[in-house]
């Protein structure tokens, strides 16, 4: 990482233009249908600037923000997940050939993606998914192809949503890894840092000057204050053991009385990776596609194996989700499955909040 650089707001336009010139499709938070999503940006004016999000459990609204503020929206329902782990993708095609058949893998076409405005929690989530899909010998070709040629411009959070709890999960609000450039937005400028040699080269092409000690200090204060002011918390101390020991906690039944088993929490979670593999045949029976689709541990079919469903009740499934996310994920992948982005809280139609559920389980365990 280099020293902090002073970046005038106007230079963001150059950054987007340079990335586009390098053949990247640039994506950033864009307002769409009462939310924001990572979509193509050709210029700064495409970004959801001057708007802020108001979030709470089960509720999301966009509101007028601060004029001149470019990255005012903390996050939307969509993370980077769909760009690397596609919601619905063809894996192989099988064709009938006489009495035999031939199958061919469908590899996604190469593309260069640059993301502008990625939050620290989402970078941490990409790192979690990398461990899942690109681990040792087990490399997912589809994920790998999509993930390969990516330029990440992080934006450090100076304001958190009330649903955020990255400080508890030690993933934010300041990006520390996984980016090429990171920006901290201030009233009149950004403070920019590079996190890779590609980022370093980009800073040079932008022709920025070194930030003054005061500017760098101010940027740091803003992210520190954001961390200190974070309202939601998740006490992670001894969490795996707590959840394993509380497999029979009455709280699972209680939360299941509210849970719709609708799958929204897992769909928006940037680390959830459950999927189903289905065969889609052409009507003449001469060709079949093997398709991978996002699935969820909340769906009944997901636990239906060989004629038996081993998680028939919603309480079984909520327990599976939370225990995997916060406990067995660590045994399996050496990291928590939760980065504290708060999406599952905001986008749950009935506002179920995992931080509250964990607190309730902890409280009842002590008694």
């Amino acid at each position, binding site marked *: 990482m280099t020293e902090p650089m002073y970046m005038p707001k106007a230079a963001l336009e150059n950054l987007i233009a340079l990335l586009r010139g390098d053949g990247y499709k640039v994506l950033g938070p864009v307002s*769409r*249908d*009462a*939310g924001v*999503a990572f979509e193509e940006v050709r210029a700064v004016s495409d970004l959801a600037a001057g708007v802020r999000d108001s979030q709470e459990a*089960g*509720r*999301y*609204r966009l509101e007028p923000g601060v004029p001149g503020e470019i990255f005012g929206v903390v996050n*939307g*329902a*969509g993370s980077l997940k*769909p760009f690397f782990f596609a*919601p*619905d993708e063809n894996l192989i095609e099988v064709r009938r050939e006489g009495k035999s058949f031939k199958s061919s893998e469908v590899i996604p076409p190469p593309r260069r993606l640059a993301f502008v405005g990625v939050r620290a929690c989402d970078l941490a989530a990409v790192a979690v998914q990398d461990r899942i899909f690109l681990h040792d010998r087990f490399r997912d070709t589809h994920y790998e192809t999509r993930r390969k040629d990516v330029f990440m411009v992080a934006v450090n959070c100076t304001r958190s949503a009330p649903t955020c709890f990255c400080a508890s999960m030690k993933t934010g609000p300041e990006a520390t890894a996984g980016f090429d450039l990171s920006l901290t937005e201030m009233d009149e400028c950004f403070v920019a840092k590079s996190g890779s040699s590609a980022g370093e080269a980009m800073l040079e092409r932008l022709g920025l000057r070194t930030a003054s000690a005061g500017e760098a200090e101010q940027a740091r204060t803003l992210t520190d204050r954001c961390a200190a002011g974070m309202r939601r918390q998740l006490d992670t101390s001894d969490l795996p053991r707590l959840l394993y020991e509380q497999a029979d906690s009455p709280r699972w039944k209680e939360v*299941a*009385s*509210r*849970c*719709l*088993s*609708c*799958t*929204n929490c897992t*769909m*928006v979670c940037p680390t959830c990776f459950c999927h189903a593999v289905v065969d*889609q*045949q*052409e*009507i*003449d*029976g001469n060709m079949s596609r093997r398709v991978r*689709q*996002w*699935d*969820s541990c909340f*769906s*009944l*079919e997901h636990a239906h194996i060989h004629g038996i469903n081993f998680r028939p009740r*919603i309480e079984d499934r909520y327990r599976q989700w939370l225990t995997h996310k916060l406990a067995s994920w660590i045994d399996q992948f050496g990291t928590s499955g939760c980065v504290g982005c708060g999406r599952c809280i*905001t*986008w749950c*139609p*009935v506002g179920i909040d995992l931080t509250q559920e964990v607190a309730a389980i902890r409280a009842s365990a002590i008694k």
Partner: protein
Amino acid sequence: MKPRVAVFKFASCDGCQLQFLNAEDELLRLAGQVDLVYFPEARSRSLPGPYDIAFVEGSITTPDDARRIIRVREESRYLVTIGACATAGGIQALRNWADVEQYRRVVYPSPEFISTLSTSTPISEHVRVDFEVWGCPIDKGQLLAVTRSLLSGAKPVLPAYSVCMECKRRGNVCVVVARGEPCLGPVTRTGCGALCPALNRGCYGCFGPANDENMESFVKLLAQQGVTGDDAVRRLRGINGYVRLWRETADAIAAQKK
């Protein structure tokens, strides 16, 4: 010999069988696979049974139809219902809560010619059904997938999870969370591709109940959104209102009000 396929109509609007015709390209390829021996909507040649696959559209609303469906069952190896009417009784099942006799007298100039039952009921209340395809109308892709499975001698499988899963795969912004709009998506079976939420409207429940749902919590969510009493009853008694879980839920809300 190619499998003999029939498409029957009972009380319905024809929208579901039209999905065969909407299949266009696939229809020609399908026609190469099967012998469409009975499909009055599409061709004038109608041959008698037996049939390998009978697709049945529409609900049972007349004494005649109640007899006819038994014959169809007897003549068919596989009987597949297509659409909300055949599978759940359809929107015309609203009559199940109404005074049909009074309608008959008020609506028709010569009520003596109208022979009707007081209820609209799904095919499965009358005969054994091998597979049900939900939707109002059904989805073309699902119809073709079920047909292909039967032709391959495989058990058809259609997903029965909530519309929400498809809605999120598609990247829609949730209308419940971001707009406070009521949406039946969390309790409705997938199949439409989350069409309405993609157009910023709540789901109407065209594909009937998902395979697992928590109606108690869902009714509370509706109430939080200000949807209570008659309004809540109407939403649940729409297209698939006669299906047990939704019927019981709506009946309970209606009873509470009284």
